[in-house]
């Protein structure tokens, strides 16, 4: 039942209202002239506090989440979000700070931000970091905008207007090409070879004076480490392009190898992945960017500096070449606090262990699934923190596809892996267990996969009808898009 269906006209929740204010929307209780005033009542629920609490508490239990289920959603790093990060970031002193507070009222907060910048520099091997982008995609935007700014500043400020292309491997996440477009670049796709690496020959053919840069993820979204990264960097750099690193997969390599050392010029991080800030049912995230020496002047503001033990906020005022601010204030500050707390809890050794155990878990699952007869997309490769199973055989032989497997997994109490991404692998399952799961949990998932495989062989219709045990059966997405019903109309 929708909250609106529990609403009754005239029900008010007195405890949540300021006292001594008339509520009649039609009386000019203020001196504001009528022409500015609303005359109708907005459709907000008229429910008691308990009704709201009960409704949203019950709704919450209709979600799968990390706190309740194994959630091996590839490319999303659904690992445990330590509760302390939430509790401590919600201390009144942090919640009550107005973003325009002067620095003398902000030393506690700014100290955390400064330290976080330093931590991220170490982790990425980049020279400077700005924390402000509000998610991975905005980090990408910042990165590509910096590449544009860099080219524009070449030739003594006259720019390099030829450089209109961004290269993107065909396995790239959708945000990569979308970002390039937002920065007005043309996107040129680079194919992948059968081992999951970038097709170097194709790359060589693609680069040239029109190349502004390349966007890469390493490990790639195919769950393998791009081994010829140095060669790629050289090719792109020689052609005058810059290298952008999509840091969504940083969890796999923390402390093991640094993007800065691979030759990248700019990187974004997904703190909601690698630094375990909550995914919140779709956000908020945080997508700080790090750069090599030559891109420092272009970093987005605000940033935090430390001068003689005092912290200061750097804005566009002092950083004239900056691509500027991408949010009204300092990005998702509360998310950054959570990431900072997480980083301190882990510490330098803990970070490295994250990569190790994320990789261990992925390789373990990959091998076990392979032994159980599942086909790997890249059977000759080691897994990174994730790996790909292709269910094309199942789709062909039993007409049970990746989506069917995904829905049936829900019945077994597992969130499905990422399906149908990357697009180039047919009937694709991108599986990322993360380091925080136990061997038992992985074994349980593998057992479920084997059971579903058996079901596909013996009772394909059962699998195709899944799920059966959730609040709803399989939903009609086609109807949703055709007969748009986007708001409740009473």
């Amino acid at each position: 039942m929708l909250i609106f269906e529990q609403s009754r006209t005239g029900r008010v929740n007195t405890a949540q209202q300021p006292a001594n204010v008339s509520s009649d929307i039609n009386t000019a209780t203020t001196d504001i002239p009528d022409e500015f005033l609303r005359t109708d009542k907005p459709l907000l629920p008229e429910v008691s506090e308990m009704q709201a609490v009960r409704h949203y508490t019950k709704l919450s239990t209709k979600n799968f989440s990390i706190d309740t289920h194994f959630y091996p959603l590839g490319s999303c790093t659904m690992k445990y979000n330590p509760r302390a990060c939430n509790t401590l970031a919600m201390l009144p002193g942090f919640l009550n700070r107005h973003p325009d507070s002067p620095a003398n009222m902000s030393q506690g907060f700014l100290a955390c931000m400064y330290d976080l910048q330093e931590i991220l520099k170490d982790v990425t091997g980049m020279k400077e970091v700005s924390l402000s982008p509000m998610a991975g995609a905005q980090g990408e935007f910042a990165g590509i905008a910096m590449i544009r700014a860099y080219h524009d500043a070449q030739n003594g400020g006259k720019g390099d207007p030829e450089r209109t292309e961004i290269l993107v491997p065909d396995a790239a996440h959708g945000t990569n090409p979308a970002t390039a477009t937002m920065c007005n670049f043309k996107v040129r796709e680079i194919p992948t070879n059968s081992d999951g690496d970038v097709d170097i020959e194709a790359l060589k053919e693609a680069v040239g004076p029109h190349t502004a840069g390349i966007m890469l993820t390493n490990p790639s979204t195919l769950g393998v480490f791009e081994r010829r990264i140095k060669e790629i960097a050289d090719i792109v750099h020689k052609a005058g392009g810059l290298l952008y690193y999509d840091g969504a997969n940083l969890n796999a390599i923390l402390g093991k190898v640094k993007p800065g050392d691979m030759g990248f010029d700019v990187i974004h991080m997904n703190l909601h992945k690698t630094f375990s800030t909550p995914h919140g049912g779709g956000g908020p995230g945080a997508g700080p960017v790090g750069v090599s020496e030559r891109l420092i002047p272009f970093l987005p503001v605000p940033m935090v500096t430390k001068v003689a033990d005092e912290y200061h906020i750097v804005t566009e005022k002092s950083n004239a070449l900056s691509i500027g601010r991408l949010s009204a204030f300092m990005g998702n500050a509360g998310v950054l606090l959570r990431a900072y707390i997480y980083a301190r809890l882990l510490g330098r050794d803990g970070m490295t262990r994250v990569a190790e155990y994320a990789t261990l878990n992925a390789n373990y699952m990959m091998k076990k699934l392979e032994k159980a007869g599942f086909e790997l997309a890249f059977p000759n490769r080691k897994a990174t923190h994730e790996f790909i199973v292709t269910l094309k055989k199942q789709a062909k032989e039993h007409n049970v596809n990746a989506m069917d497997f995904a829905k049936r997994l829900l019945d077994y109490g597992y969130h499905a892996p990422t399906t149908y991404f990357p697009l180039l692998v047919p009937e694709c399952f991108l599986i990322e267990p993360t380091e925080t799961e136990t061997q038992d949990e992985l074994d349980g998932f593998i057992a479920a996969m084997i059971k579903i495989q058996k079901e596909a062989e013996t009772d394909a219709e059962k699998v195709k009808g899944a799920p059966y045990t959730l609040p709803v059966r399989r939903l009609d997405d086609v109807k949703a898009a055709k007969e748009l019903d986007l708001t409740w109309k009473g």
Partner: protein
Amino acid sequence: MPFIPHTEEDVKSMLAAIGVESIENLFDEIPAELRAEGLTKVPEGVSEMEIARIMHGHAEQDSRALCFAGAGAYEHHIPAAVWEITTRGEFYSAYTPYQAEASQGTLQLLYEYQTMMASLTGMDISNASLYDGASALAEAVLMAIRANRKSKLKRILMPRTVNPKYRKVAHNICKGQGITFEELDFDLEGGHINPGSLPKDPGDIAALVIPQPNYFGVLEDIDVLTDWAHEHGALVIAVVNPTSLALLKAPGSWGEIGADITCGEGQPLGAPLSSGGPYFGFMACREKYVRQMPGRIIGRTVDLDGKEGFTLTLQAREQHIRRSKATSNICTNQGLLVTAATIYMSLVGPDGLSKVAKASHTNTENLVKKLEDTGNTRRLFNRPFFHESVMQFDLQTDELMKAMSARSILPGVIISDDYPELGNAILVCATETKTEADIEMYSDLVAKITKDLQSA
């Protein structure tokens, strides 16, 4: 090992299953010359007990100031239930509802949110959030350019009464796509866009941005402005404060046919100030523009048994399907904040939100009067305002700021950087959280500080 559950035996058995000797072997595809020696600047790990003490210390450092600042971030009362429910693991630690059947909680909530926002703004539909108010304006501009098929020139009319930070962000995000922003100056008496100053023959404009209330807290002549824009073939992008909408005319009712796109900062709906984020941007529009909308949209549908359910819809607009042709690159948005906002709106209801708006208005009015009574400061603009006002002080604003902040009062936001013509101007705000005593403390302190500093 923090957050890693493996025992030594687990590791052994897992390595055996994989068929490698050590975890290190799993990294052997990384070229040796690239291998890092570990981390050096990251501090050693600490226990939860230790970090708790460190963070308590930092939080106490920025001790609870009495906050009269607004300028895009507003201190409102947030019912305790909002964050107690929002941080339940099932909301907090889920992700984008890709598997709709396993995400009905989040999806239904978002559908309810869309309904509330559409109604509040007077628009037909709403998306499920953008990053923040500033970037939402940037997306609205990009959307308007796409939506206004008649306009060819990618020109946007941008009043100077729009929050200067929003204008910067819009510029920073849109400039790559060759969009030009033309400024509209404001009336120095009213602090608003004087309709009389609008160009007679503006040429091809894709959209006019109308803030209500504007950055100065002042109310714009939204009806006239809206109609003017539509007459000249421009779309209207409304930038509004959601709290104010319980009291003020919804953008859908501006002028003859209403605004086309409405966006703004959702923070006042249940998000704490928290240094500027996470907040969320909202965006609503006319149904005909829905395919130009950026961000997630949830639709109601049925399941195999005909039972009602909710799912992500119109995904063909989005980057994961449309890639370089998507309406935006946005992927992760601000779901948890929308969760909080939906619960907030349910708890306060239409009546409560209207009272919050009125109490904020009245408190600011009282503050302005009290400040004027000191004789040391005066309001700059003579037009009606919502819950903010620009005050001009006798003192240098940074001296005042220093003296007040030393007493744990944040007197407002200094705006002279963006509006040098306004002199020693501070944008002040007193929401429903402020008492008469708070307001008196502020004005008394201004009088005292002015006296002290002038006689020094």
